[in-house]
């Protein structure tokens, strides 16, 4: 495999970080401040895109910054998987920034400069995770991301956000220090390297029991992936302003968790070792439990954002599930779900935020009849739901389809049933919202005291329309992402 040396990965990581001082210095002038965000976001996206052709040709782009210890350096390597994730995160960052201006100004939130600054740091860390060449670098950016998101989650600075923030830290920072760090150091102790490689880093030094424990430590330790029982930070984190929930808790942060698990399974253990030790099944069981339980809990939630959160928990496990199938089709389905779910779920969160800003409603039971007043938002919500359920014409269909084929390929028919049941559950908890919106009756309150409700401001509506459209487009043109996965995983 050809390796190209380039400083681009570093630039892609740093550009939003360097925007922070500029953002802070123009904190008194919101318009100037926001334009810097766009400049940084667009440059970032362009840098990421400029690496795309090389990656699609099967090359890798690498850059070593600091040698910390032999085999454990601070280094970037861009491959298909990282590229896929970086594309999703950096493109959605631009869209979310538009949305976030609408949301934060619509609600006249305090501390907007702090908010956008930490958002930019979080994005840098996300891209850093995507481009990491080894586990040490990945861990570094993973931790930066955890910490950068804390002030975003607790943005309101009230009692509830304090408690949620505490939960967030205990789960995210606690697991990464208590589980991932020792596991990582053990790997280094045994092998003397942490470099991701398709064949894995272990060459027979790892007996099965040790491998099992290590794998569990990683799967649970990357708690950003929301694998049960380390999931409850995610619903708690919904106290954050909606742009945070949308970009970070449907795309960046949670996908970083999943991405890390995928990296560890494919790059540290290696598919070969996992299938030799038959460890895929174990992870699949864990993921299946999360898929089903997450969906069931989602059914019972009345607060829209919490329902979305539990749906996210369950959907994230699809990705882990797909990779744990250890079959080409399963891997493809799992990884492509990173993309499909991102666009679907971010649309749903955008809608939830738009509804909240326009009407102040958070609970599904209050949303009867809103669809007639906010047709665009609810139409987008419908498309987003299709994406998450996995129905055509949305990109989500593609990933579910591959996952199901993957179960057949791996001869795990039982697990196919899990996927089918979950899809039904998804439909059950999403479609009624749309139905109620368009055909339901307005609550009594509105009948007695009619308030004029209309679509939220354009800065919020346009982003959600764009993401909805993209998730339909992905149904027809998923090729780029499929090629990236094929290049990245060599399948």
């Amino acid at each position: 495999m050809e390796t190209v040396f380039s400083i681009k990965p570093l630039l892609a990581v740093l550009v939003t970080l360097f925007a922070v001082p500029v953002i802070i210095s123009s904190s008194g002038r919101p318009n100037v401040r926001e334009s810097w965000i766009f400049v940084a976001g667009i440059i970032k996206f362009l840098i990421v895109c400029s690496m795309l052709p090389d990656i699609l040709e099967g090359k890798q782009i690498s850059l070593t910054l600091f040698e910390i210890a032999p085999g454990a350096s601070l280094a970037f390597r861009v491959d298909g998987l990282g590229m896929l994730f970086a594309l999703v995160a950096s493109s959605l960052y631009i869209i979310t920034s538009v949305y976030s201006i609408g949301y934060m100004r619509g609600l006249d939130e305090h501390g907007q400069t702090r908010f956008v600054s930490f958002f930019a740091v979080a994005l840098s860390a996300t891209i850093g995770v995507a481009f990491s060449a080894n586990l040490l670098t990945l861990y570094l950016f993973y931790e930066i991301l955890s910490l950068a998101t804390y002030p975003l989650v607790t943005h309101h600075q009230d009692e509830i956000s304090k408690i949620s923030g505490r939960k967030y830290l205990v789960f995210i920072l606690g697991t990464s220090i208590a589980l991932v760090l020792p596991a990582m150091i053990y790997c280094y102790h045994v092998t003397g390297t942490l470099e991701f490689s398709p064949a894995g880093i272990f060459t027979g030094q790892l007996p099965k029991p040790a491998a099992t424990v290590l794998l569990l430590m990683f799967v649970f330790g990357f708690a950003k992936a929301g694998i049960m029982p380390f999931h409850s930070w995610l619903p708690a984190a919904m106290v954050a302003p909606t742009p945070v929930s949308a970009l970070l808790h449907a795309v960046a942060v949670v996908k970083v968790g999943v991405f890390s698990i995928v990296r560890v399974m494919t790059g540290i253990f290696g598919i070969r070792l996992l299938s030799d030790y038959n460890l895929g099944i174990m992870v699949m069981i864990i993921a299946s439990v999360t898929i089903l339980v997450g969906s069931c809990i989602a059914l019972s939630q009345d607060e829209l954002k919490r329902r979305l959160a539990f749906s996210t928990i369950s959907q994230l496990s699809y990705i882990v599930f797909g990779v744990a199938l250890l079959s080409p089709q399963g891997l493809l389905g799992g990884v492509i779900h990173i993309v499909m779910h991102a666009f679907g779920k971010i649309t749903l969160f955008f809608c939830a935020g738009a509804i909240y800003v326009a009407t102040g409603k958070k609970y599904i039971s209050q949303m009867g009849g809103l669809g007639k007043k906010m047709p665009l938002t609810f139409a987008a919500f419908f498309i987003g739901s299709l994406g998450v359920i996995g129905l055509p014409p949305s990109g989500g269909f593609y990933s579910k389809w591959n996952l199901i084929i993957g179960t057949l390929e791996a001869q795990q028919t039982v697990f196919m049933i899990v996927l089918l049941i979950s899809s039904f559950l998804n439909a059950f908890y999403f479609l009624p919202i749309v139905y109620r919106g368009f055909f339901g009756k307005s609550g009594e309150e509105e009948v007695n005291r009619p308030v004029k409700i209309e679509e939220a401001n354009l800065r919020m509506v346009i982003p959600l329309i764009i993401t909805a459209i993209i998730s339909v487009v992905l149904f027809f043109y998923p090729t780029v992402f499929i090629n990236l996965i094929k290049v990245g995983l060599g399948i």
Partner: protein
Amino acid sequence: MDNYPVLIVVAPLITALLAGLFVWIEERLSYPIVLAGLAVSVFSAINVLIQVLASGSIQYKMGGWPPPIGIEYRIDLLNAMVLCLVSGVAFLNLIASCRSVKQEISDRAGSYYTIYNLFVTGLLGVTATGDLFNLYVLIEITSLTSYAQVAMGDRDRGPLASLNYIFIGVIGASFYLLGVGYLYIQTGSLNMADVAAIIKDAPASSTVLTAFILCILGIWIKMALFPMHVWLPNAYSYSPVVFSRVVAPLMTKVMVYVMIRLMITVFGYDYVFKTLHLADAVVWLATIAVLAGGIMALAQKNLKKMLAYIIVCEIGYMVGGAWLGNRLGMTGAILHILNDALMTFALFLGVGNIIYKIRNVDLTDLKGLFGKMPWTMGGFVLAALSIIGVPPTCGFFSKWYLLLGALEKGAYHFAAALIISSLICAVLFFKVFEICFFEPALHGLENPHSHGAIEEAPVSMLIISGLVSLSLIAAGFYSGTIVNRIIIPFLG
């Protein structure tokens, strides 16, 4: 120039005495004089480090007397690094001190600067010297000056804390001196290299054993290894902040250096780890120290005291790492001397800025601090993350080596203690951050979110604390270089 090694120590000594004289002549001049002395010291230390990196250890014979009769300064990679660290921290702290001293001890500023430079002289001498008895003398200079500075702090509790410190400090020093006496009985020499050569060839004797245990015990008392730490928290938290800023990062770290010097250079690896069977027990002790330090820190209601207990915990890291008996552990311990000094310094600089503004650092006083002092808190957060061990701050990388060393030795209890202490530190600091972030400022307006105007510390203090906090990240990135260029060549 060949005299750099001695200049490091002599420059602050002479300027200290000069500054003392100037208290009677023109007190305002004391400050620039001591500052100049330390500047010379920093410059010489850096030069020495460069020389040592280029051409190996330097021997400097005091007054031209050959060892073992004369006092010898022997500077290798390890103490060259520590010398740079000590002089650098002392120098930077002095720059930041100008305003705090005016505020805290304005009536005795000139005398304070004199004592301060004497204290630094002691630390530098301890680091530079190659003579066991000279080491004792310099430790006592350091200790005596720190007793005095502690007593200058809190008017009520400062003197008592100092008295406590004196009692225990004197015991520690006596142990060490007694140990040196035994060594002298056995070898008839006080020069470290000379003693080492004689012990190596002589059969193991109980005199050497006694000497070793007494010396190490004395040093442990001086470095506040649990359970010999009781003097430290009060002494560090009731002293004036200008002094706690320098004593917290340096004093204990220099003592760790002395311990490592005794273990490696004087008694030798073979004697410590093969002849004696103490290592396992000491690692256990260190494990307990790490945990106990963390737990006691949890119980504190005053920020300064909490940080003092964190030092107790960090001492456990270094002692444990050094006694693991493998290169990785020792690498971690030595790297942690540097890193821990930097991060403790950064933390205390933050505390210094806060005290300058709000006088008191009980945790409840810290409400709304992120809004009030965003830059100070930014630096403080970075340092706290380093203590927790979050990459890319340097605290992570020394922990990395310590953990690897623990795994190699099979000392899983020590590894577990390191991880647990990271978690405890995370709880500790986020407890503080929660107060600073969520609670509305005390004198603020009714609206909790309008955090009032920014009231930052003076720019001179901000620049220093900012620089030191950023250096944590730089030290993290370059820890590979530090290990490869300094620590591994030193360990041979």
